[in-house]
Each structure stands twice: as structure tokens, then as C-alpha cells.
């Protein structure tokens, strides 16, 4: 081992990089390659198929459907996660609020609870006959009849999105609150002296300071929601009638129920490319944030 290599510090990062190469880089490359081969459990050896599987995917109405479900799922979830998290951060950040730490701990509970637990409890709360949600909504007069939230195509997606928003809004809140703490007090005070109203201060002082972090949180949420699998799997399994089958669920089913690994890999590659495009924007933003 050369002294130069030792001094460069590269040895420190090699173990972690080797791990990442094994569990991430290798699988990614493998997925990309296998997506050009026909490969099911029932074949002896994979056959080269070119872009045939990508073509087949675009003709598969369940795959095309899964794209539109993914759009609804992702934008629906992220919009409410962000709005709610942002609003809660602003409320919590106000100077007069006492006991912030305790309030924050309580608000973080959904995020800390394992997703599987969240799914199990919400499934029980959504229960058509004995669920507390139907009971409460009926008592306050929002609905007149018990609804089968998770097993009717009209409400299933909405119901899963609600759970996802419940789980992730605390994370958004935490991140934005941290950003708010970094806003310069002097600038705010100066604005007050200049006679600026609350809204003006927010627009001209607070927002420019927290905007970069808001954008990064937004993009993180987008990618995480695109990848989210646990809630959909446990609450509806992609049903009823494929109405909640998002891309991650489609890929999972193709691979582990139909055992069509080639098609699953082609679909994976498409999902991966979408995530990477969003990540590129995220990384450019965090780098810009660093430079400031």
C-alpha cells in the first residue's frame, strides 16, 4: 500500500463504498441489463429481447394505469404533506408558543411509528362495520351510511393518501421549523422598524431564507412517495380493481406474484429514471444551498 494512497484518505471511504456498490450499484446495473431480456421463472435462460418489454409495458393497460395512479398518489400525498407540515411549522415557530419540545414530540409520533403498525391501526379504524372513522363521521353527520373506505374504488386511493399524509407531515414540519430557526432575527426586526406588516415580512424576509430548504423537502417527499410501498401493500394490496396500484406495487406484483422478472425490471428502470430526474434537481438545489 503506497504512502500516497494512505495519505489521500481514500481508505476511510472504501468500506462504505464497497457496501454501497454491492447493495445498490450492482443491483441497479443488473436491473438495467435484465430489462432488455425476457426472463421469467419458467424459462431456463434469459433471452435477449431489446426494447420489446418496454413496448409491451406501454401497451399494458395496468402499467399505464399504474402511472396515472402514481401521479394521483404522489401529488395528492405530497401536496397535503407539505401544506400541512408547512402550516404546522409556522404555528409552532411563533415566539409565544410554550412547551415546544413536548408539542413537537407528540406531533412526531406518526413519523416514528413503523409504517406496518400505522397500516394495521388505520385498517382497523377504516373498518366498515366497527371502524371508529365511520362512527365519528356518522355521529357528526358527514356521512349517513357506513363506507367501505379501503375496498371501494372511489375511496381507496383517498384513504391510503390520508394515511401517508398523516405519517409524513411531521417530517416536513420538523425540516421547515429547523429552516425557520435559521432566519435572521436582525433582518426581521429591521423590517418591523421599517413598518412592514406580517405578510410583507414573511414574503420579503422569511420566505427567501427558507425557500431552498422548502424545495429540497418537497423533492425528498416526491421521491419517497414515489417509492412508498408499505402502506399500499398493507392497506389495499393495490386493489380494489387495481385502483391503488401505483408503480412500485405493479413492479412488486410483476416480480413476486407473476415471476416475470424481465417486465418488472423494465418497469423498475422507468421508475428509477423518474426518481433520478427528481434527484438531480434536488442535488442541484442542495449544492446551491451550500454555496450560499
Amino acid at each position, binding site marked *: 500500500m503506497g504512502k500516497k494512497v494512505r495519505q489521500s484518505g481514500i481508505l476511510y471511504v472504501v*468500506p462504505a463504498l464497497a457496501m454501497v456498490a454491492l*447493495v445498490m450499484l450492482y443491483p441497479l446495473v443488473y436491473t438495467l441489463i435484465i430489462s432488455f431480456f425476457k426472463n421469467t421463472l419458467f424459462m431456463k435462460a434469459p433471452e435477449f429481447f431489446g426494447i420489446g418489454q418496454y413496448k409491451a409495458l406501454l401497451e399494458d393497460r395496468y402499467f399505464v394505469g399504474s402511472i396515472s395512479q402514481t401521479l394521483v398518489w404522489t401529488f395528492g400525498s405530497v401536496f397535503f404533506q407539505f401544506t400541512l407540515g408547512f402550516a404546522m411549522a409556522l404555528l409552532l415557530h411563533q415566539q409565544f408558543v410554550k412547551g415546544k419540545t413536548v408539542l413537537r414530540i407528540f406531533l412526531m409520533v406518526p413519523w416514528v*411509528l413503523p409504517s406496518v403498525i400505522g397500516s*394495521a*391501526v388505520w385498517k382497523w379504524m377504516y373498518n366498515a362495520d366497527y371502524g*371508529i372513522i365511520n362512527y365519528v363521521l356518522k355521529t357528526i353527520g358527514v356521512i349517513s351510511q357506513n363506507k367501505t373506505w379501503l375496498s371501494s374504488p372511489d375511496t381507496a386511493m383517498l384513504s391510503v393518501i390520508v394515511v401517508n399524509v398523516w405519517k409524513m407531515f411531521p417530517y416536513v414540519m420538523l425540516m421547515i421549523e429547523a429552516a425557520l430557526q435559521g432566519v435572521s432575527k436582525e433582518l426581521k426586526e429591521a423590517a418591523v422598524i421599517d413598518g412592514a406588516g406580517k405578510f410583507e415580512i414573511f414574503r420579503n424576509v422569511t420566505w427567501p431564507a427558507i425557500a431552498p430548504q422548502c424545495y429540497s423537502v418537497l423533492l425528498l417527499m416526491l421521491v419517497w412517495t414515489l417509492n412508498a410501498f408499505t402502506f399500499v401493500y398493507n392497506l389495499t394490496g393495490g386493489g380494489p380493481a387495481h385502483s391503488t396500484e401505483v408503480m412500485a406495487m405493479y413492479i412488486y406484483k410483476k416480480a413476486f406474484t407473476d415471476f416475470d422478472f424481465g417486465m418488472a425490471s423494465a418497469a423498475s428502470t422507468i421508475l428509477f429514471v423518474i426518481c433520478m430526474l427528481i434527484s438531480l434537481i434536488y442535488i442541484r438545489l442542495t449544492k446551491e444551498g451550500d454555496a450560499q
Partner: protein
Amino acid sequence: MKKKTGLAEKGKAWRIATYVLLLFMILIAVFPAIWMLSTAIKSPVELYDMPPEIIPDEPTLGNFVSVLQNSKMYRAFFNSVVITISVVALTLFFSVLAGYGFARFKFKGSGVLKVGLLFGQMIPSVVIIIPLYFLFSKMKMLNSRASLVVADMALTIPMGVIMLSSFFESVPRQLEEAAKIDGCTGIQALFRVVLPVAKPGMISVAIYTFINAWEEFLFALNLTTSSKTRTLPIAISMFSGEFAVDWGATMAAAAVVALPVLLIFLLCNRYFVQGLSDGAVKG
């Protein structure tokens, strides 16, 4: 004068509104957890009572007893503990070294590699599970705890390295330089001088990793196929996926799984919040 009291009243109303809104959201945030506990201490008779009650007339520990007597649950609990502890220990080891390397040295490609790790945080696990499944089946490691430990690290190492490297950057270099003058090698300086100072950063990585590994679902679902290696999340999912669900027992099992995370979160809240915002936002 009149205007001023009006403003004061407006301020007071807003304060009250703020607290009301915060408390309302707290109710929504914690209600599922309360409902889980409430259901867990209900007997089958009271489970389907209408109107539902939060505190049952005759609370019972029967559900917990039946969960704790279920040998499969024991096994799953044991598996989850072993896997989570291994993932936390290994992630810490790898991320301490790499985080330190990235924070202190600039070598060819270090910038690119760091960006690569940021990308790593964004890779869908459903994309890597298929190749991992094949990889482990070729290595005859399917259905083993080791395979899950390795797979989980795909999720935890990138974040761990990013969090720790930003933490190490805030540790003054003079510390190691003094140690080196005293005759320590680079790696000795790291372990003897830097690590004790870096405790808060390591604790936040440990907690983050713990939470992730404890709840990991997709990998466990596909890499473990028998009750011998199954983890708690899978056991719970199978519980509540049954046709005739015993909600009391399911909620008791869920509470058993949730307890360790909630406890750790409560105890280490301080580190956790800080580390999380450091890692994710600064990058």
C-alpha cells in the same frame, strides 16, 4: 387607544387559535396510537361495542398474554432485535470511517462520490429488491438474517455517511493534530480523540438507522420466507392480513412492536431532531 385594545384582543384570539390548532393536530397525530392501545386492552366482547369506548369497561391484558405466548412472535421479535442491532452497529462502523474520510480529505473523485451517496438516498427499494433476491439466492443466503442485514444497509449507509460527514466537519481539526503530535496514527486519532466528541452525531445516526431497520418491510417480505427468519413487521402484516382478523391481538402485537421505537425516540429526542435536520438539509 381603542385601536390598541382591539389589536391586543386580536393577538389574544390568535394565540388561542394557535393552541387550539396545535392541540387538534396532536389529537390527529397520536389518536391512532391511542386507539391501538385502547383496542389492545379490550376483550373480544367489547371490541365491537357501539359506541366505541377509548377506555374499556373491563380492561384486560389477555391480548398481550396471547401475543407473548405465540412462539412465532417471539421468534420474530428475536430476529428483529438481532437484525436491527447488527444493522445499527455495521452502519455506524462504515459511516464513521467514510464520514470522517469525506469530511477531512479531498481526493480525486471525492466530490462525485459524495453526490453519489445523495443519489443513493433516492433509489427506490423496489428497484433493487429483484437483483438482491437473485444475488442472495445465488449465494445461498436467501432466508437468512445476514441477507437482511446486508440489504438494510443499502438504506442506512448513504444517510449515515452524509449525516456524520457534516458532523465531523464541525469538529475542529486541531484535536487530531494535537493527538498526532503525541504520536497517534490517523486512525488512532479518529477513534481516541474525534469519536468521543462526535457522540451526538453518532447517536443521531444510530437512532435513524434503528428506526429504519426496525420497520423495514419490503426486503424482509421477500428475503425471508419462513417463520424462522421472519421479522416483526412481516409478522404483524400477516396478522392483520388474515381473513378474520383478531383486532385485539393484532393491536397488542402492534403495540409490542411500536414500544421500543417510541421509547428510544422519547429518550433521545434531542439528538434525533438535530441530526435529522443536519443530515437531510445540509447534505
